[in-house]
């Protein structure tokens, strides 16, 4: 017994000594580290000045902290930024960040999180929020803001410049009670319909310019025995149904106009207003019409958005012809996935496939565009100038240049030179965006999460499961479940 006691003591003492030594070592090295970074910062700042005076004087970016960062004042600091972009998109985003990293010496650590919304929420709840985080849904931004998690940037960010440069409506979406809680970085145009070019031309079909032409063409495809006109699928892991909400929104925009549309998502009019039910009617004329959709309503609910276009590119010829989806969808088409070399795409957009603008319906409403976007919001205290500088950089055209030039990216910033858009979809999309009669932001992103990411999604899934029957009850159910504000 006694022997063991001494053994314990020996172990404990060893532990004491080891840990004491460790503690000392870490405290001293930490001190040294701080000293060297200070020294490093001062020398590089001097170097930075030297280079600016020697070379061309750095042009002001119009943003205070970004100018300072470009002068090398924050070299050696670290900024953590997270977004949902992984794999190819992660590479592109990193490429867009690289000029900032090189010019400022700030270590921008980007992390692309899978299952993004939940991952971000978990980190924020766990007091481990990143400095900057991408948010896709303004409703999500509002709830983070209500929780007091977001930094109001209006005090130091040149919001007027932002308002001037971005497509009208974006800054307004980041405003809450006079504060500004995000900067829009990326946008998508959703009102487009993809089709396979070669078979389409072989069959002698023409691009429809009105809604009626589009339905007439659909009928003709069926009559010609060329399969089903539409490829539709709304299965999307935990977000089933959002594709259907986009469709309905696009039709509401085209039939009831953008003013009604904005009232609708603000819930100033009931969710199941007659205008919306009429739009649903218009939608079921395509979705639930016999032979219009490949595989019928069961396939709509069963097909993952990544697989929707597979029959369109069937080697034996298209089994369905149209997919209404945003400009990023080609990345998910067969032959395009997991191919690092974009040149090797089996069905390069613009050659094998192309798109047309989803036609307007009511001439009085004109040709509106439905879109969405990603903003960056600041989660940590805004007193760190390097974080502010990065947020400012992301608002400049240069902040996205590398990604724009690769493709798959549209900036909400109108000062982006048109010739940066060199890849096919965007060369066509940017004119659509700029020439639209109105821009409607994806309503389900703006509605409260209970609706926009909940009952609206599940309601559409149920509607499809019922093959378009019981429209009134389903829409009434969504209206009834609207949370009391």
């Amino acid at each position, binding site marked *: 017994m006694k022997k063991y006691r001494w053994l314990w*003591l020996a*172990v404990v*003492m060893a*532990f004491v000594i080891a840990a004491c030594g460790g503690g000392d070592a870490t405290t001293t090295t930490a001190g040294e580290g701080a000293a060297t970074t200070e020294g490093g910062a001062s020398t590089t700042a001097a170097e930075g000045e030297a280079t600016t005076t020697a070379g061309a004087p750095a042009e002001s970016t119009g943003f205070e902290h970004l100018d300072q960062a470009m002068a090398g004042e924050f070299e050696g600091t670290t900024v953590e930024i997270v977004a949902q972009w992984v794999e190819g998109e992660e590479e592109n985003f990193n490429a867009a960040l690289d000029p900032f990293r090189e010019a400022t010496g700030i270590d921008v650590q980007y992390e692309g999180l899978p299952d993004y919304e939940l991952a971000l929420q978990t980190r924020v709840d766990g007091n481990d929020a990143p400095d900057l985080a991408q948010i896709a849904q303004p409703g999500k931004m509002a709830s983070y803001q209500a929780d007091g998690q977001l930094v109001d940037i209006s005090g130091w960010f040149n919001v007027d410049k932002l308002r001037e440069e971005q497509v009208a409506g974006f800054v307004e979406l980041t405003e809450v009670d006079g504060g500004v809680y995000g900067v829009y970085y990326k946008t998508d145009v959703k009102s487009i319909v993809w089709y396979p070019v070669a078979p389409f031309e072989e069959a002698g079909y023409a691009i429809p310019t009105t809604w009626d032409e589009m339905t007439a063409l659909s009928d003709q495809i069926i009559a010609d025995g060329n399969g089903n006109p539409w490829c539709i699928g709304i299965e999307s892991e935990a977000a*089933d149904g959002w594709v259907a909400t986009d469709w309905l929104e696009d039709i509401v925009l085209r039939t009831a106009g953008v003013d009604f549309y904005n009232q609708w998502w603000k819930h100033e009019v009931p969710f199941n207003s007659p205008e919306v039910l009429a739009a649903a009617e218009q939608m079921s004329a395509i979705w639930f019409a016999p032979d219009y959709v490949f*595989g019928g309503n069961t396939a709509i*609910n069963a097909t993952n958005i990544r697989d929707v276009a597979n029959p369109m590119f069937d080697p034996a010829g298209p089994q369905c012809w149209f997919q209404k989806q945003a400009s990023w969808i080609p990345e998910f088409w067969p032959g395009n996935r997991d191919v690092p070399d974009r040149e090797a795409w089996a069905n390069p957009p613009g050659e094998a496939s192309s798109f047309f603008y989803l036609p307007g319906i009511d001439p009085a409403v004109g040709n509106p565009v439905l879109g969405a976007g990603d903003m960056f919001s600041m989660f940590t205290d805004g007193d760190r100038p390097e974080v502010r500088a990065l947020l400012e950089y992301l608002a400049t055209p240069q902040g996205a240049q590398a990604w724009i030039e690769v493709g798959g990216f549209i900036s909400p910033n109108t000062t982006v030179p048109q010739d940066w858009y060199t890849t096919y979809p965007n060369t066509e999309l940017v004119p659509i965006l700029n020439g639209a009669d109105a821009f409607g932001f994806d309503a389900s992103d703006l509605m409260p999460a*209970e609706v926009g990411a909940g009952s609206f999604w*599940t309601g559409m899934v149920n509607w499809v499961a019922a093959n378009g029957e019981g429209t009134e009850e389903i829409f009434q159910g969504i209206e009834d479940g609207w949370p009391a504000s």
Partner: protein
Amino acid sequence: MPEAVEAKLETNRRPPLSIVRDLTVAVGVIVLIWLGLRVLRSETALDALGPFGGKLVQALIGIVLGVVGIWALFVVANSLVELLPARATTVIRPYVFVGPAVVVLSIFLLAPAVGTIIQSFTEVPEGEGPFYNYVQAFTDPALQIALRNNAIWLILAPAGALLIGLAFAGLVDRVKRESLAKSFIFIPLCISGAGVAVIWRFIYEWRPEGQPQIGILNAIVTSFGGEPVPWLQEIPTNTLALIVAFVWIQTGFAMVILSAAIKGVPVELMEAARIDGAGEFQTFLRIVLPSIRGSVITVFTVTAIAVLKVFDIVYVTTNGNFETDVIANRMFNEMFRFRNFGFATALAVILLVAVIPIMVVNVRNLRRQGIGA
């Protein structure tokens, strides 16, 4: 034994030097642990070691603190208690050893549970009574479907796992390569719930007629000339399909417990039954089954609790669409997607209340077996 106790009592009358030594060690250990925690909490202390080295040292400190530190704390606490008079030592020592576990459970289990219950009554819209969330929960049409589904799960899943597990346990007893056969049944239990859900999602995959069926079930159906069945969309086939996936996991658990219990049935008893002319089936029904009654109840209650908590299978396969929702999935959605803390906590409390009767049965069963006080 008495000798050992006496020897123990002897040690309590110790020279002052050893008291000083024990106290020094105690203070040293506490200071050390405090220092270690400071290093772990600091964001910069280990930066000098580089991103990888820092993480590595941090992990090492964590492991050392967690394993050696806790052990050292117990040793120190024990030695301090031994400094007290002999009678006090015997009275206090059990609390010293049980105390930390009680404290940890209180902080990480009891406190959140109480907080959840309170929140479910207080997180209500302005002007609404404390039962608002519960009224909502029981009147929401979608939630009624979830409650109904939980009931279906509760009836079918434990019964399925139990019956199949029992059949395997009884049969596998006679197999030559018993452990190999058992391993196959047991493997699904080692796969995470989400992984199982992904596997079964592929099994149930549906493609429009005429397309190649990549789901094995529909591939079989169509190879016999049938029409592909959308297993996960058809009501109520879809809920049953999800229950099958769950039973697939739990059968291994049931089999292992029941197989061990069957081996514990006295051979004499079985032989006596056989001599009296009982057949194999009758022996199993009349002798084995009553003998392993306790284990059967354990398997049933543990599976029932797992069923009430079921989430991953539903979330991954259908996300609660097509009337397959269950309470836990709805709770997850309310909590993490809609940020409705009041509603989500009310659902958590409903689940908690639903589990209590099953726990009572389980504890009584354990007591009957002589396990636990």
